[in-house]
């Protein structure tokens, strides 16, 4: 998934404009998101890419770069 595609997906789920959000910015803090919206964003990535973030590390995916790193490390389709 490209950076642009991730931005678009997270924007759709959160209803927020992510076009100026830095790749290393904490999404919950910079967008003032509630924890459930944060979970919904990760769920959307999982669904789109058919992958699964580790249940015990969900809190560690706080920035777009962290999500992208996981996506590109995970070999599942």
């Amino acid at each position, binding site marked *: 998934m490209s950076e642009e595609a991730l931005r678009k997906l997270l924007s759709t789920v959160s*209803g927020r404009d992510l076009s100026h959000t830095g790749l290393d910015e904490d999404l919950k803090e910079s967008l*003032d998101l*509630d924890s459930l*919206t944060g979970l919904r964003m990760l*769920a*959307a990535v999982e669904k789109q890419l058919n992958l699964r973030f580790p*249940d015990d590390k969900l809190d560690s995916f706080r920035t777009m770069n962290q999500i992208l790193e996981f996506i590109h490390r995970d070999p599942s389709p």
Partner: protein
Amino acid sequence: MKIGLIAMSGVRVRSPELAELGVTLPQFVSRGKVIASLPSLGLLTVAALTPDDVEVAYREIGEVDPEAELEPFDLVGISSFTAQIDEAYALADRYRKAGVPVVLGGLHVSLMPEEAAQHADAIVVNGAEGAWPRLVEDFKNNRMQARYDGLRADVFKAPNYVKPKFELLRGRPYNRLTVQTSRGCPLRCEFCAASIRITSGFQQKPVDVAVEEIESALEVTDHAFFELADDNTFINKKWGKEFLRAIIPLGITWFTETDISVAEDEELLELLARSGCRQILVGLESPSGEDLDGIDPGNWKRKRCDQYLELVDRTQSAGIAVNGCFILGLDNHTRDTFPRVKEFVDKSGLLEVQITVQTPFPGTPLYDRLKLEGRLLQERFWDRCTLFDVNFRPKNMTVEQLEEGVRWLFKEIYNENEFNKRRRHYMEIVKSQIQ
């Protein structure tokens, strides 16, 4: 003239074992932080009821340094719940000693007016509507009385209604704002110590008024999450649907407290999801109907109990997470109740769970009954009205067994592994809804 309005806030636990345990449990900590960081809607309403020629400052107790010099005001108003009331009295005593008159109000003061009057120059009983404007006028004219009784009815009708002064929150770091759409709840559970105690019946704001309040609150924040400060928002389903349709265009996300009957109405559930409702907090109280016998006069909860699992599932499948609340120490509870609660939580897939101890708040029917039965452990225990400390003798177990059972449930339900399992269940529901 400047009036300082001070809100007591925060979650407190007196039992050292539970306090120690609590800070290590992820879900307990996160909900505690949320509650501690909510603004005081009551004092924002008091501010709005204050005449325009009087300056008002809104403060929260965390901003009042107990060691520092008191901030200078001509009059101080303090609002507090029961668990923090002794801290509120201490602050009131300090101000009065410094020559600043103090007014006390809020739920505890309304239920224990004689006690509160010992620490105040004036008290406000019930809501501030119908009382505060008179009080300020009297204060200006040096004739402030010792007690002002606010209205118990028609508080949302002209000329009594005012929109809370949300602009006082501008620039403050809240991630949740509160708006109240109703006061009271017709279920009248025996233990309830919420706004039901200061209102003569269920009162609901007209939809346009409630929506206008949300719009006003939105002006002071960019992306707030809203928490409806109601006892039971969706008692009236027709009102509920109208309200939800009206807030869909606002694009907010929000949370409220209501009863499980929302799940009996498919259209309501669909509107809840579309309007940005992320979670509802529901008082399930106990997993078995027999346990619930008599907790509300109409046995409403007992009648619904057999459907709890199905109704929770229906709500969460619509994309609305449920925070299921259980009260431990009901008269029909035994030591077997604790594993049954755990079993229910596991089966239900509840995203969040709130475990509390039945608490006889002064002024409630529960308090009166337990006092009459000689089952209160102390005469005065307000600082232990935390929802986590045991203040009465349970009927079918000992105090120690109840405390031990609650600690066991805390460990079983709030640990990292269980928390992760519930989160995963919620994520799978969300994924199943994505096209």
